[in-house]
């Protein structure tokens, strides 16, 4: 069902045009990479503050209030360019092991951020100036730093086709992780 939809999506004229374009695809990809500096960069600076190892005299609410809008702009650029890249080759990314890991960790990072905002951040004014924020905030910062590192690394590795369904034989667990069963059956 999903595969049929993604197969159709990848054959739409705009998807084909984007993938085969001389400059559009590299420009979208480069924007995606450069926006990392804005999105992950500002996120990481805030996380380091939450963990308590950098910017220790800068109030946490300065980060969540004044830097976060820039992080959001970065996130918007990442999302738009990321969706375009996915749209250029949906089926290939869908069956790419690194893409799958990236999406799962991306969701975990989102849940972590949401938990922080409804949790420790709610009474942030009480610990705004603490050089060592409360446990919940420190955990949120550490989880965020680790999760985004994994997202960046797996994101970069999506470019490599080592574990793609058309590269066989692979260990069973690799094929399972890449969801290659349908492809290998020939039903796809």
């Amino acid at each position, binding site marked *: 069902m999903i595969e049929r939809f993604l197969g159709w999506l990848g054959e739409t004229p705009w998807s084909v045009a984007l993938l085969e374009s001389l400059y559009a695809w*590299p420009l979208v990809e480069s924007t995606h990479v450069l926006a990392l*500096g804005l999105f*992950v*960069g500002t996120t990481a600076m805030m996380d380091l503050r939450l963990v308590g190892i*950098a910017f220790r005299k800068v109030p946490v609410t300065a980060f969540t209030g004044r830097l976060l809008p*820039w992080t959001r702009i970065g996130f918007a650029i990442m999302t738009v360019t990321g969706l375009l890249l996915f749209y250029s080759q949906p089926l290939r990314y869908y069956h790419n092991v690194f893409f799958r890991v990236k999406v799962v960790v991306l969701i975990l990072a989102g849940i972590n951020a949401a938990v922080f905002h409804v949790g420790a951040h709610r009474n942030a004014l009480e610990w705004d100036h603490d050089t060592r924020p409360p446990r919940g905030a420190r955990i949120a910062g550490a989880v965020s730093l680790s999760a985004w590192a994994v997202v960046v690394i797996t994101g*970069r590795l999506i470019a490599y086709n080592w574990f793609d369904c058309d590269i066989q034989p692979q260990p069973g667990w690799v094929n399972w992780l890449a969801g290659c069963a349908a492809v290998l059956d020939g039903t796809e």
Partner: protein
Amino acid sequence: MLEPFFRWCEATAIGQAVAQSVWAFPILEAVHLIGLCMLGGALLVVDLRLLGVGLTSQPVARLARYARPWLIGSLVVMVTTGVPLFLSEAIRAYYNTSFWVKMCTLPVALGFTFLVRERVARRESADPHDPGSVTDRAVGAVSLALWFVVAAAGRWIGFS
């Protein structure tokens, strides 16, 4: 003129080891990207403030002081991963325009950051909420522009 040197680079043990390994280049690239994120964050916190946006409730000097170890640390990561990446494909880099754009802009960006921006950002202001002078804004903008060129040209090495 420099081509023999680039050939020598590629022939080094590290260059050959990275070029012949399946995993080394991708892993180095991924860590290079982690460095890019940290570098971007460490630069932006200060540059945005110089531009009069971002963490405007904080004095520039304080932000610059806190960001400095992360700026230097990320540059160390960039260089230690970037050098072996270069060595593994030095001859290709020699004929790559983007590589030269990056390598010509990089020393300018480094010089500007540590000689000009450092001095401007560390100057203690009487008013911590100082909205930022014309000089501050210009320095922030030039810093961002220079590093943008370095990063964009760096990414484009792979496309050209």
